[in-house]
């Protein structure tokens, strides 16, 4: 144990942790949405994210950008960001919908038990990541430096970069937009209704299939954004990137209270920061262990996560 590792680096560890946490949170929103409505741990969500990380790379590739390119000027950078985001969002959204249509909808039609969904989800996840793995020869792909990290301001020994600000802001904005949508809009109420009692929801005039598709789509969109941010922050992607971050994201979703959008944000940020602290104190190898210990401890005191479930069906 090395507390000086934490104390010396407290500020920077917090900031980088928040940025990582924001990505985790965006990713976690997809788990939380789908879980909230279908009570399904959508294992394939990690591959929805994975495809997003490759989609924006592909889009940038069309501009001739690769990991060896020089950082672009502000004008082109905005263009690239936009294009990258759009590509990732489209691909991730489409992937999420495809998974829903190919893997889950047929099961729902046949009234399959919950575990069956979990297993198809696992199958879909395995399939996608393996296909990507074969296609990329399991190599890493480097990301072009679209945004050159530049310090924006410094507090003490802590510099905050433009990229970190962008990531954190984007996560907050998306979370609040989603929150407003789910809790404020008519369609959002439909989502909650399907979550709590699908039959009754139909009796209220809610189109269940559309709501479910919407939920997958929204989760996909968030994953797409998370994917672009991930690419920029980590700088590299690989066929198993989704699986790896997926576990963090799912942990974050549960930590905050699965089915609870704000919980996902809180859980993600908390996890990101905590992992960094743990890496500071115990060494980077303990970072994931620390997040699970945190999870267990929190669940022991709050069995439904920090903020509890909100989308999900409360026990009648």
């Amino acid at each position, binding site marked *: 144990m090395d507390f000086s590792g934490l104390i010396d680096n407290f500020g920077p*560890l917090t900031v980088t942790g928040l940025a*990582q946490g924001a990505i985790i949170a965006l990713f976690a929103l997809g788990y939380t949405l789908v879980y909230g409505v279908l009570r399904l741990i959508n294992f394939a969500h990690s591959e929805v994210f994975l495809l997003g990380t490759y989609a924006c790379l592909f889009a940038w590739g069309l501009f001739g950008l690769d990991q060896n390119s020089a950082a672009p000027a502000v004008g082109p950078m905005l263009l690239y960001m936009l294009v990258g985001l759009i590509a990732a969002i489209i691909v991730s959204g489409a992937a999420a919908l495809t998974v829903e249509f190919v893997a889950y909808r047929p099961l729902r039609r046949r009234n399959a038990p919950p575990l069956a969904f979990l297993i198809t989800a696992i199958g879909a996840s395995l399939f996608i990541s393996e296909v990507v793995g074969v296609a990329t020869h399991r190599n890493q792909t480097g990301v072009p430096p679209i945004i050159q990290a530049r310090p924006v301001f410094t507090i003490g020994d802590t510099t905050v970069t433009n990229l970190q600000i962008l990531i954190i802001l984007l996560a907050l904005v998306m979370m609040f937009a989603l929150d407003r949508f789910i809790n404020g809009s008519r369609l959002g109420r439909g989502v909650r209704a399907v979550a709590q009692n699908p039959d009754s929801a139909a009796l209220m005039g809610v189109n269940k299939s559309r709501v479910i598709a919407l939920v997958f789509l929204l989760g996909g969109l968030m994953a797409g954004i998370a994917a672009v941010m991930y690419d920029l922050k980590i700088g590299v992607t690989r066929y198993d990137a989704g699986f790896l971050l997926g576990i963090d994201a799912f942990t974050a979703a549960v930590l905050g209270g699965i089915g609870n959008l704000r919980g996902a944000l809180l859980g993600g940020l908390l996890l990101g920061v905590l992992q960094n602290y743990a890496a*500071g104190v115990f060494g*980077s190898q303990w970072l994931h262990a620390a997040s699970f210990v945190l999870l267990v401890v929190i669940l022991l005191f709050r069995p439904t996560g920090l903020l509890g479930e909100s989308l999900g069906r409360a026990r009648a």
Partner: protein
Amino acid sequence: NSGSSSDDTASEGNCGYKLAFFGALTGSAANLGVNIEQGFELAIDQYNKAKGSTCIEVAKFDSQGEASVAPGVARSLVADKKILGIVGPPFSGESEAADPIFESAGIPTITPSATRVSLSSKGWKVFHRAVANDDAQGPAAAAYIKDNLKATKVFVADDQSAYGAGLAEVVKSKLGSLVVSTDKTEGDGKQADFSALVQKVQSSGATALFYGGYYTNAGIIRKQLTAAGWKGTLLGGDGMKDPGLSKASGVQAAVGTVVTCPCSPPEAAGGTFVNDYKAKWNQDAGTYSDVAYDAANVFLQGIDAGNNTTAKLNDYLKTVNYKGIANTYKFTETGELDPNFIKVWAFKFDSSGDAKADVEIKTS
């Protein structure tokens, strides 16, 4: 040594056998395995081409690089009586699990890359190692940091693999007080965000980071270090000597990264290996492709010399003294490379994106 034999009957008599590659061809470690397999296969290809027939067949066995898979695959290898020798297993872990099986079947093995020190002390008679073990490479890397880089503050980290951790430990002990701080990361594919490590490196004031691990993680770390504005030098062992590193990090970031390797640069051998490899596989030779190429040639030479049983071939390995493209090979009693031939070179990534020979490191 036998010299070239143009005797038709002799060579025909020594045909119809197989040489096997045993290692990861799929799975997350496939990359390293494939590099080695392709080097191995290239050698046999060239041999067969020279013969004008498929004299020696290639047999590939995919262990996925996993110790848990290896025994079953090893047993199926052993069942093929035409196999005279094995290049592999590449990783130390799977070697532990598979070598006892090869030992009991008496099939000679030459590993081009499994560098765990203890492998040679198990009493396996079929075990041969075509590279120096971790005990040789670590001191060399430390010497390079001290003498060539002249760094005074060094950060040492590793990925906790048997290989990476062992290497880092040696480096650490050799560097002594130069080490300002240490850290460990998770293994390949188990961690992608190294911001905590990067931060620690930065705040430690180190001008050099030695990372015991493979190029996969190293590429990400290199990139994140650069993105965070760290200006020091990243160093590593043979596991990082792969163009994959710069493919991940971007050539710009990778330039200047130093890797050591208990092998000499293939260009130095003056052969056509580099080009031949590229021509055949449409990609650059990677880590240990050259050693595997040499290992295959050691076997081929032995077979050519009429050692057409596993026992004979194994005996032959005791006496072999073969000059290949990466090194000269002569084995000790325990199957280690003869200390006299242990060479450690430093390689440096340049703007081509690959590690080019820098200097030979004196280890004494």
